[in-house]
């Protein structure tokens, strides 16, 4: 099978409109989560992109009024990634889009309700950049973003495409906010993943994108060496008590990469900061013999960015490899899960060669992807 590499990347979030700007904020432990009082429900903590700043950046690319917020975020991110990429769009280039809810706000705003259909969103992005192939849209709850990387890898390995641009994004809408509130899952403070004092999630919005290719021309490259996406077969809205699907996903990724758990230098966990999710992850990582591996959740910086989260957090992991830094798990203080985990309390220098990114979501879905530094 062909080797597959991740090259260019870009993050659009409240922390900045490039990956570098985001990483600079993370290294200073700045969070995008602040108290927002303009929701029609009640004030709550969330990580939200400033509309004026977004429109200002977008104005160099197109007419802000013609595109939804999510489309602008995704287009800005892709534009940045495409401009950095070593390859150009050909008829063997896939466009892969990951989102949970897409333009769900079109059900209740000035855009036509048809805009809420994901293929309509796909077409907007495809036409903007002139992609020659039909967009591949993945909507698989909160694993969408990281699953999109696995899908791109599999398609390239099997020669269906030479390369791909992958973009993931979701917005903070009244739709998702009220839904998580109805589950009583929203924290009354900025979220505190894996902490004893955690009280739930904070939601956030972001778009993230990467270029994936079978040709590496860089001296130091990031290879995607294994993946797995297994179901808990347990509950549609609650994480498995045994971490079954996540454990199986990690095993599947390890088996494909032909590596042992001790080879992993860092885990970028899902860590939503709900009581059940974080406990489930602790169980799965222990079952996979990964409890000693330095681990963080980036939800303390971004909140839970839903379909973007896995992709966004994988990009931060890639920068951990490049910068030889393990970033602190913001919001963590005392361990709040029943079995050991090695949570990164302070940002530290460390050589990272191999890392694991995981995510889990409603519907019992889980995804694990392994990334490795390759030096030519």
């Amino acid at each position, binding site marked *: 099978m062909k080797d597959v590499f991740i090259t260019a990347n870009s993050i659009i979030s409240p922390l900045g409109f490039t990956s570098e700007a985001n990483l600079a904020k993370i290294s200073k432990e700045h969070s995008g989560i602040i108290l927002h009082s303009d929701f029609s429900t009640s004030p709550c903590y969330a990580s939200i992109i400033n509309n004026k700043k977004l429109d200002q950046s977008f104005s160099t690319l197109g007419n802000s009024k013609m595109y939804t917020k999510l489309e602008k975020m995704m287009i800005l991110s892709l534009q940045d990634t495409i401009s950095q990429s070593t390859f150009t769009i050909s008829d063997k280039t896939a466009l892969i889009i990951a989102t949970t809810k897409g333009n769900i706000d079109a059900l209740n705003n000035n855009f036509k309700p048809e805009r809420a259909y994901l293929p309509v969103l796909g077409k907007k992005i495809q036409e903007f950049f002139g992609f020659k192939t039909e967009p591949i849209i993945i909507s698989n709850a909160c694993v969408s973003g990281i699953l999109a990387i696995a899908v791109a890898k599999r398609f390239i390995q099997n020669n269906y495409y030479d390369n791909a641009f992958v973009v993931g994004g979701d917005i903070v809408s*009244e739709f998702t906010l009220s839904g998580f509130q109805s589950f009583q899952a929203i924290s009354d403070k900025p979220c505190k993943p894996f902490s004893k004092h955690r009280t739930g999630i904070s939601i956030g919005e972001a778009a993230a994108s990467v270029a994936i290719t079978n040709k590496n021309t860089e001296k130091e490259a990031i290879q995607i060496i294994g993946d797995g996406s297994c179901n808990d077969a347990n509950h549609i809205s609650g994480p498995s008590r045994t971490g079954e699907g996540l454990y199986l996903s990690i095993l599947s990724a390890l088996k494909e990469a032909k590596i042992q758990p001790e080879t992993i230098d860092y885990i970028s966990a899902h860590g939503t900061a709900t009581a059940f999710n974080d406990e489930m992850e602790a169980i799965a990582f222990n079952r996979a013999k990964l409890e000693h591996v330095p681990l963080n959740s980036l939800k303390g910086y971004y909140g839970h960015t839903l379909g973007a989260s896995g992709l966004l957090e994988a990009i931060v992991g890639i920068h951990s490899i490049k910068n030889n830094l393990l970033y602190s798990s913001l919001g963590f203080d005392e361990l709040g899960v029943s079995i050991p985990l090695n949570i990164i309390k302070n940002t530290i220098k460390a050589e990272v060669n191999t890392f694991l990114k995981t995510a889990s979501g409603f519907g019992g879905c889980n995804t694990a992807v392994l990334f490795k530094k390759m030096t030519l």
Partner: protein
Amino acid sequence: MKTNLNIITFCRIKNHSISINGKEVIQKDSQLTFSEFAKLVYKEKAFAYPKFFKMDNLSKLGFLASEFLFEKADLDAHIKENIGIVLSNKSASLDTDRKYQETINDKANYFPSPAVFVYTLANIMIGEISIKHQIKGENAFFVSDKFNELLLEQYTVSLIQNKKSSHVLCGWIDVDKDKYDAFMYLVAKEGTQNYSKEIIKNIYTTN
């Protein structure tokens, strides 16, 4: 390194009718709504799975198709456990999204329900099928403008080539207002009916 794959079984649900491998097994009155139709089918088959009544219409449709398909395919539990599930549609969960949106539109009559919200993700249907049949294999939900035989073939072949799955449950399960359309099929190396994107597209359009 082309792998030859076969279609083990296929199920079609549309126009108040259910067929397995091209043979109609259920036909109901065309005046029924989808949920009335689904309830009648459930009773007739005596499924004894009360969770069915909590599901939204999309999950009900996917659930019914998978029940008929697995009944016919009759796979061993160890094979079933690792089946990959790759489903797709056009509307994602919009049919339920609209119902949920109605519960939050009016601030004087605001009643968001977690029981409805959880179904505002199309892959919940994969979760429901996985729970019923104890399937812990690969999952993916794709959205496209119409039945995309190329995408489903490429992903199915990738899962089997990469040794992630031996059997893949594929399908197009769409519910949008009063329209519904289900086509589900099981692909593996075993079997006698050749699988290709052309063959599957032909089955979809002629059944």
